[in-house]
């Protein structure tokens, strides 16, 4: 194919009505784009990416921009594709508990659209304002993953635009479906390095009639582990078992969901497991489902086998980390002071020895530059091969992902 004439601005504008020069506000983790385009449809996104391919532009997708500093900064960005115009809840099939929505749709908007039918997408919103696309790209999850698992399980159909502009679908709009490869899972957590997700289909769950939150103080990590395990291995079937571990003790909180009478009976049983100091309430504590870090800190995601949680809590405290997350899933989030970057490696070694991993999600730029964000990644060669197939020129969010992908 012969090269294309004229400058990229004109070329991009020919495919998408809303294209402008990038400015400082558009920087992706410190890397500023030359152009920002805001396509209005999947088809327009396809045309846009075909044009970007013709000009060899590096492309980063943006939703609400709440997590653009996560992962590694891109090695270059020419074009930011702002997906905020793709914000529609396209179809809510209430009788089938299925919803179709565009990637730029804020999760809160989707929840508001399905709520009148007594339904919800069973995913948490750790950062307010997150869009579906942003959650998919970062594999965002929260407390309810213990019972409902994560987006990759809740997403049953996906529309993507490839680096070459081709639009492709996988899955469908029925929950049970084994036709073809599940590309939705591949996209989930890929930080926009394989393709741009423009639309997705999700299964929904009924909003429970009743909920109860039980919270118990834990003096030390062993205590927290015992409380959590007592509930996890019981018959009360919690939707979430969370631990909040600011250091020097903390608390374990569980969420029960179900019918009014059922929840009442299960709360009685859970009280017996959590001890005399338990508090029962209808609402969640303020820290529930929120990441523990503050601006300027090192943000961690730590995973381990369920039985490893107490050790992780104990070591975390000794390392000066604030930990919080799902003791029921073995997925915790942590905050370290920027000056404590040297604690990342020993914490990672512990996670690995406990059957999990540690990923540095975010950190101040100078700290990030010095850290191995991902740690050891088995099957990295295979991941590179996948990347090479989807994005042979390495133009989608280059450098942001594992192994420099």
């Amino acid at each position: 194919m012969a090269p294309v004439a004229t400058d990229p601005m004109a070329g991009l504008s020919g495919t998408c009505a809303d294209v402008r020069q990038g400015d400082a506000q558009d920087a992706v983790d410190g890397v500023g784009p030359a152009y920002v385009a805001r396509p209005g449809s999947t088809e327009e996104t396809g045309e846009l990416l075909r044009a970007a391919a013709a000009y060899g532009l590096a492309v980063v997708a943006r939703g609400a921009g709440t997590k653009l500093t996560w992962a590694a900064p891109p090695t270059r960005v020419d074009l930011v594709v702002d997906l905020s115009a793709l914000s529609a809840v396209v179809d809510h099939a209430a009788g089938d508990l299925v919803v179709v929505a565009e990637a730029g749709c804020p999760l809160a908007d989707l929840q508001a659209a399905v709520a009148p039918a007594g339904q919800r997408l069973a995913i948490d919103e750790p950062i307010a304002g997150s869009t579906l696309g942003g959650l998919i790209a970062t594999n965002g999850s929260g407390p309810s993953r213990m019972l409902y698992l994560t987006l990759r399980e809740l997403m049953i159909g996906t529309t993507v635009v490839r680096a070459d502009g081709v639009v492709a679908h996988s899955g469908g709009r029925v929950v049970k479906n084994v036709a073809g490869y599940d590309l939705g899972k591949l996209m989930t957590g890929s930080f926009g390095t394989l393709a741009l997700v423009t639309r997705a289909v999700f299964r929904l769950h009924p909003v429970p009639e009743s909920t109860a939150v039980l919270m118990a103080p834990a003096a030390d990590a062993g205590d927290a582990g015992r409380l959590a395990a007592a509930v996890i291995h019981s018959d009360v079937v919690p939707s979430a078992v969370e631990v909040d571990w600011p250091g020097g003790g903390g608390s374990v909180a569980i969420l029960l969901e179900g019918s009014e009478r059922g929840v009442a009976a299960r709360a009685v049983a859970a009280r017996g497991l959590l001890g005399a100091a338990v508090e029962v309430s209808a609402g969640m504590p303020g820290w529930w489902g929120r990441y523990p870090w503050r601006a300027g800190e090192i943000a961690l995601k730590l995973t381990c086998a369920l039985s490893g949680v107490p050790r992780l809590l104990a070591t975390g405290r000794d390392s000066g980390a604030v930990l919080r997350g799902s003791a029921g899933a073995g997925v915790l989030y942590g905050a370290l002071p920027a000056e404590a970057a040297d604690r990342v490696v020993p914490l990672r070694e512990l996670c690995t020895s406990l059957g999990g991993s540690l990923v540095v999600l975010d950190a101040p730029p100078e700290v990030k530059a010095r850290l191995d964000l991902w740690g050891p990644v088995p099957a990295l060669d295979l991941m590179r091969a996948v990347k090479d197939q989807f994005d042979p020129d390495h133009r989608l969010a280059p450098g942001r992902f594992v192994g420099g992908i």
Partner: protein
Amino acid sequence: MSADLDSTHGTTKTAGSTVGPTSPEQDSAGTPDPAAIEAVRRELDALLPEGALITDHARLRTYECDGLAHYRVTPALVVLAATAEHVAATVTVCSEHRMPFVARGSGTGLSGGALPRADGVLVVMSQLRAIRQVSPADHRAVVEPGVINLDVTRAAAPFGYYYAPDPSSQQICSIGGNLAENSGGAHCLKYGFTAHHVTGVDLITPDGSQVQLGGLAPDAPGYDLLGTVIGSEGTLGIATSVTVRLTRSPEAVTTVLAGFPSTDDAGAATSAIIGAGVVPAAIEMMDALAIEAAEAAVHCNYPDGAGAVLVVELDGPAAEVEQEFAAVRRFCEENGAFEIRVAADDTERALIWKGRKSAFAAVGRISPDYIVQDGVIPRTALPEVLRAIAELSGSSGVRVANVFHAGDGNLHPLVLFDAAQPGQDEAAEEISGKILDLCISAGGSITGEHGVGVDKSAYMPRMFSAADLDTMQMVRCAFDPRHVSNPGKVFPTPRLCGEVPGRHQGEHPLAKAGVAEIF
């Protein structure tokens, strides 16, 4: 529970490839090259222990089909792998010789996913059957792929846990096969499929190298290759170890059998139950013809004169199950149920399930041959699709018995015919194919749990565009550029991995937009 031997029945078939809109891959069975086979045989013979390599034609023939006996191909060679090293060695040799290999577990699959290649090696995994670790504290077990599904539950039961995915062949099917097919089962309405219950695999990739995907903990860093491999029908490699999630055994289980005048009534009850926010562990439906067959086969004593029955199972905390049962009873009664029975104990529960779980094999009692179809529709489309199936059946004279997972819209129409009667075979295949078309036009899928395999690859273009299939095969090319891992399955036409078809087709968008000229 009775053995559900639907998959061992010798006369079942599914949709068939003859009615597809496009022909399946020209040569999915392969043409043997004696020199290449001999070269591979010699190398494998040197690498594998005595007895692990089968070359005798009569013994090779015993592996000629899986649970879909309609398709038969005698493999060139069979390897009975006993260790991961045997698998790796075999795959490496195959890759070097560009010889296809096909993994096989218990051979119960219903889409021909483990159909051998005449020009390739069948790797039989059933000897890899150690349960390496059961760790209730971690909600995990680590098992080899040849382990039988139900044996995982048996190993976990003493600790109060079980393995949730329960395909109806669970007494004989293997975890490796479940992984390949992303198997479901009656209880996946509430608990999900294999993909939701596997957190790690050791995989021999199609070039023979070994990689670890996932592990005890969820969310391993990097691409979710684990989620991609699950359900890929053996086209991305062979698993040699599988880490599965164990689920706490429910405190209470209530199983309800309700008889309705018609499938419309039973469907309305299903919609009412789901619409009210109740999520049963299972909701299964059978129509009159399926009930007749089950009665003939296992005397399950379902309600007399029922036009449809529902089997609804509720499980979880006793206090919740009690509430849900009250709701289910009310919705069944409101929608015309004339008889509602509740299993008083495990024996009664087993009897209720026996009728349902034996249904596939049972139609053998009322018809010499039958096709087991597997399609999915949105649950709300159930009444109209069932009516359309009845019309197809009525106008063609081909009888169709309906058994399905009503809760998630997964239909298993059983298309009955007599192969001895001229033309019936073709008529049955045509109806079976039209049922898939109904599923697609209702917004559903051509397979909910049996897989695409060799049987439905010709139907993939009806559900997915060329670009969709091309994109899926990019994954295939990343894992298996030599196209040796179970080739001829899933995709109707292979993608050439060295090129990117369609990339530069059509008018360039810039030229189209009039802002640039191509020169």
